[in-house]
């Protein structure tokens, strides 16, 4: 009951944010947090629930951004461009999965890293198609149902809707039989095979699901910046979102969101005050690894429970000491 109330309050605060945050700068930062949260949630399907660490997800993310930018810039309709961008992200996920799922662990990580860098290399070098380092301008944001998304608050609401859909999809997926199968394949792949599961196909479907939401995030990212350059696809972007997932807490619903909020806040807000914000972010990551290696969200829950129990127990144990 308490959890439900807390969730309702959080939801109300989230949706009404443009009403109580007047400054469009902060509304935009909130949009960025949500876009990265969707990205991190998508990656978390693989990292957290499938136990497969990908370092190539920026390739899928950026491919969706590039597709929508390229199509819109060349005059395609917004809806068709958006659908094509998501389809490209899912199709490329299938290619990544076919190649990378030959391995698990470090092998999987290295293959996804290489594939991501290939996509980056194409964007960087195939100048006639991608305009190379100069990138592509998206022109305008779409107008779903005739509502312009040009203002920060309208775009934020659009992003919130996508974010809530992503969160709901994740919540449904992890509770479903297929989600349970994916976690089973993470913990005991041999046993799962012996129980009659097709471990490869389960992982493949997990990869597609992850790739779809990564594509959604990439699409929103394109709308947000209205510009895309090869930087978006680079390994550092893959590493950054992986850090979000790991620092927030893998295999949890809220962890990737907290991780995204932390990294985006450091990158945008803190960097305005502290020149060496990277150093601060690094220190925060080290602190997280030392104090709560399971991630911010599960770690905070653990520390909170521990503190609560300690507070409750101390007078009782003192009373018990009396003869």
């Amino acid at each position, binding site marked *: 009951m308490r959890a439900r109330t807390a969730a309702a309050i959080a939801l109300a605060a989230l949706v009404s944010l443009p009403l109580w945050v007047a400054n469009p700068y902060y509304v935009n930062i909130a949009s960025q947090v949500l876009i990265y949260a969707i990205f991190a949630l998508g990656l978390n399907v693989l990292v957290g629930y499938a136990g497969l660490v990908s370092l190539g997800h920026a390739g899928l993310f950026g491919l969706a951004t590039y597709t929508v930018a390229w199509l819109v810039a060349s005059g395609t309709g917004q809806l068709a461009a958006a659908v094509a961008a998501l389809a490209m992200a899912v199709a490329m996920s299938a290619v990544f999965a076919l190649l990378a799922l030959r391995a698990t662990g470090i092998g999987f990580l290295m293959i996804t890293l290489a594939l991501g860098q290939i996509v980056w290399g194409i964007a960087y070098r195939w100048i006639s198609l991608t305009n190379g380092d100069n990138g592509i301008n998206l022109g305008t944001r779409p107008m779903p149902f005739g509502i312009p998304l040009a203002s920060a608050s309208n775009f934020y609401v659009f992003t919130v809707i996508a974010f809530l859909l992503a969160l709901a999809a994740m919540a449904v997926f992890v509770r479903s*039989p*297929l989600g349970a199968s994916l976690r089973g394949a993470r913990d005991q792949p041999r*046993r799962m095979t*012996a*129980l009659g599961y097709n471990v490869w196909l389960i992982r493949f479907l997990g990869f597609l699901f992850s790739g779809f939401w990564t594509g959604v995030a990439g699409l929103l990212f394109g709308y947000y910046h209205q510009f895309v350059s090869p930087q978006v696809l680079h390994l550092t972007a893959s590493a950054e979102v992986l850090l979000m997932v790991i620092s927030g807490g893998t295999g949890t619903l809220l962890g990737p969101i907290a991780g995204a909020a932390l990294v985006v806040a450091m990158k945008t807000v803190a960097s305005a005050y502290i020149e060496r914000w990277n150093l601060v972010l690094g220190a925060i990551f080290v602190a997280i690894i030392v104090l709560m290696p399971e991630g911010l969200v599960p770690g905070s829950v653990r520390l909170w429970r521990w503190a609560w129990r300690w507070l409750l127990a101390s007078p009782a144990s003192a009373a018990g000491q009396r003869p």
Partner: protein
Amino acid sequence: MTALDVRELAKSFGGLRVTANVNLAVAPGERRLIIGPNGAGKTTLFNLITGELTPDAGSVHLFGRDITGIASRRRPHLGLARTYQIITLFPRDTLLQNVVLALLGLSRLRWNPLLPLGSQRHLRELARAALARVGLEAIAERPLSETSYGERRRVEIAMALAQNPRVLLLDEPFAGLSTDERRDVQRLLASIPREVTIVMIEHDMDVALEFAERITLLHFGEVIVEGTRAEVVKDPRTREVYLGA
């Protein structure tokens, strides 16, 4: 018809022959014990039967059907279940969820990405019944990580039985158990109906001999002796290879 028929099965790892032309015919409802010293190739034989390893030569037949070329993951659907020597369960889940996962493996529902698994009543009822069979119903909701080794062995067997197998392969079900736990598992195995054919690998001769009708002795991947309990125990080669007397 034989329940499980292994013909001329062979497997080598490099120059090491771990399974050398093994023939094994297990009748429906039979209780077969496979014994042999460490490294005799007993678990390898199980892995070849379940398809986790691909044989170099020979074939495996399940109730007359050649399953040699069938993927490992398809074989449980044909009625072949196994337990592992080293317990391989899902430590973060409850006992009930472990068994539900075993049931789900044979259900088309396993591909469903939308329904909540927790509300699948019939799966939970079946899983509870499977746990009741092994006497663990009372702790069904306990996380696996909070159970004893003996209880986990029984969860393994419950998961295998939940799949309603026709042939059940048990890889050292008594390993690492206390005397009391052994008695529990022994009673549990005795209660399995004859519709289930059982092939068991076991080191513990006391409990295992009592259970088995026929015994196969493996040594260096070869079948050395096969026969009834009395025949195998009496055979001088058994004493030489295994009993060490």
